[in-house]
């Protein structure tokens, strides 16, 4: 069929009218949030958990009438690598017409996806990726509601000083620490900040690094053992964390305190080491639903929501952090009166909520680079096969106190 110029003009005009109709319909339709996470591959378990809790937050707010009178709809975009993150953004924006993008369990994916989102003029609301660099870029569409790697590092050092040194009756200058980390950007960035803070506090320390893919880490453990530290602080992934703990057990390395940063608080570590060995090991972690209601008001209600919908307990602490991040996003969108990224970022920058506002115990106060300065992890401890928050003291549930320190 051959189109005349007039017919072609008519088709274009008609298409434009339809596009206009669709746009105005979209205004009354749901607010679509594209959730970028790994839903397949090695990181799927936690990617799934993070998005499940976005969906839980969406259900919760929809039950209250939605945001700006519109329902919230979470649309999943699978990304297991930075390249897939970019492709997922293109698909979510181009095909699914999402209004906002959120994520991410993995820093590398967040890094690439958020830049791609900026190209489409979309907000990237980060809840879970940790690297400090993400906010240090100063990307105008990027906000992080959860803690960064620096907060994990500072909480670990705070725990070393306020729990371990205090319990051992040592001044910081008399305390000896060992900072162990896996040697990629993740472990190195947290360990570097830990070293800075330990030095600032006057604590003597040694440092060791290892490859997360190492077949054997006994050499790392023996170096730490030789230094005879009071506290051994490790930042690694699950598999090498388990390997380090096994080597420590086999080599009789038993410092007064052992502290794991970011991992080591799941069933995977419990099955590998058993509850007897883990008893008393500290974990710097996202706040879990076990925190006291005084510290994290609504944590119990979150747990109930989760159990009602999924019929089991949360599988990882990342979930409640994601849920809270999504709630903060809803509040920022509401305050902005829409989904335009500049307005939402401005509304988020104006938020000023004290610590203890949300289920995780977080408040909301963003710095100039849009990092929430009131999102702090807790120090938890393995006790009887369960992980329980013990620091800050007000985060601990009733009857929970530090046990097995120094480690028997």
């Amino acid at each position, binding site marked *: 069929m051959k189109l005349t110029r007039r017919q072609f003009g008519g088709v274009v005009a008609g298409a434009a009218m339809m596009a206009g109709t669709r746009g105005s319909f979209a205004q009354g339709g749901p607010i679509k949030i594209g959730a970028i996470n790994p839903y397949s591959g090695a990181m799927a378990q936690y990617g*799934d958990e993070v998005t499940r809790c976005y969906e839980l937050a969406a259900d919760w707010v929809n039950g209250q009438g939605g945001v700006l009178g519109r329902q919230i709809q979470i649309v999943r975009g699978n990304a297991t690598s930075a390249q897939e993150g970019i492709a997922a953004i293109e698909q979510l924006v181009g095909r699914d017409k999402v209004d906002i993008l959120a994520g991410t369990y993995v820093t590398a994916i967040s890094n690439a996806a958020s830049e791609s989102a900026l190209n489409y003029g979309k907000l990237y609301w980060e809840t879970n990726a940790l690297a400090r660099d993400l906010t240090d870029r100063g990307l105008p569409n990027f906000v992080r509601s959860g803690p960064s790697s620096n907060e994990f590092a500072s909480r670990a050092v705070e725990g070393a000083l306020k729990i371990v040194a205090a319990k051992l009756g040592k001044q910081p200058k008399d305390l000896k620490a060992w900072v162990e980390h896996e040697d990629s950007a993740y472990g190195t960035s947290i360990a570097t900040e830990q070293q800075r803070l330990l030095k600032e506090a006057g604590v003597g320390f040694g440092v060791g690094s290892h490859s997360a893919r190492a077949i*054997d880490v006994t050499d790392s453990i023996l170096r730490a053992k030789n230094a005879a530290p009071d506290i051994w602080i490790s930042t690694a992934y699950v598999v090498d964390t*388990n390997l380090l703990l096994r080597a420590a057990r086999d080599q009789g390395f038993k410092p007064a305190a052992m502290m794991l940063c970011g991992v080591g608080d799941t069933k*995977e570590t419990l099955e*590998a080491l058993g509850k007897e060995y883990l008893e008393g090991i500290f974990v710097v972690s996202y706040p879990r639903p076990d925190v006291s209601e005084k510290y994290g008001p609504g944590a119990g209600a979150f747990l109930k929501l989760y159990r009602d919908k999924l019929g089991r307990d949360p599988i990882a602490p990342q979930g409640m952090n994601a849920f809270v991040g999504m709630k903060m996003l809803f509040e920022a969108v509401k305050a902005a009166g829409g989904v335009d990224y500049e307005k939402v970022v401005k509304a988020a920058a104006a938020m000023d909520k004290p610590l203890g506002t949300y289920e995780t115990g977080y408040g909301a106060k963003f710095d100039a680079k849009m990092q929430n300065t009131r999102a702090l992890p807790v120090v938890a401890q393995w006790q009887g096969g369960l992980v329980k928050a013990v620091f800050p003291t007000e985060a601990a549930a009733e009857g929970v106190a530090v046990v097995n320190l120094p480690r028997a």
Partner: protein
Amino acid sequence: MAEFLNILAIGLLLGGIYALVSVGLNLIFGVIRVVNFAQGEFVMLGMYGAFAAQTALRLDPYLAPVLVVPALFLLGCAVYWVLLRPLQGEPMMQVFATFGLLMVLENSVLAVTRGVSFSVGSVLSDTTIAIGPVQMPLARIIVLAAATVVAAGLGWWLRATMPGKAIRAVAQDRKAARLMGIPVERMYMVTFGVGAALAGLAGCLLSPLYSMSPQIGMNFIMPAFAVVVLGGLGSVRGAYVGGFIVGLTEALAGFYLDPALKHAVLFMVFIAVLIIRPSGLFGVAGAEEVGLREQS
């Protein structure tokens, strides 16, 4: 001195792990002349096999080889027959095929497990034997003993039995072996099956030591390649001794220098050995006798 002895013990035990993983890899390389990138995945399957046996049958991981080793032998035979045999005469394509197999196996296990790591326990795995200042986990001593038995047993089998002699004949000259009536294709299949079965055995015995993940095979395969090249391509004794060289180098460099530098030191030793002795420590010069000659 006590410290040095402890590190020496750690290095020897680590060498046992590398030797056990490398023996099968070297057998396949020496006979079929295929660099089997999927060998680490066979180890990984062995680990998951031990996990499945413990979960389904409450079988101790040290008893799991009874089921896992035959299963991996059959899998190895099937892989050779279906994947590698049609690519005979295309050595590069065979290498790419094993790489493809690596990806298939790794991603299949990922899809099933969704990346969750699993662990298996044994009554023996928590025991450590202390000799003076030297601490040796029993689970690693078992691996070292198994590597020794496997290397000795395989060497004897290749030297003293008819199938072993046939495999050696095929490795030395495929055409002459065929003229002597040896079923070359079947010997290749059996060799690949035995190589996979040895990886399965390694996986079972290593399972109490590690939290298993679908990617764990890759962690083993890179040092294993260093072991077989250092020890000598196609040499069982080379794989065994090479394992200890790699293990000791890693342990000593990791402790006395820096754990982050141990692989750099290992590959410096690797390069030095190759410069001095290009065929590896126990390889035959030119490697013609172990099957590296271009054959039709």
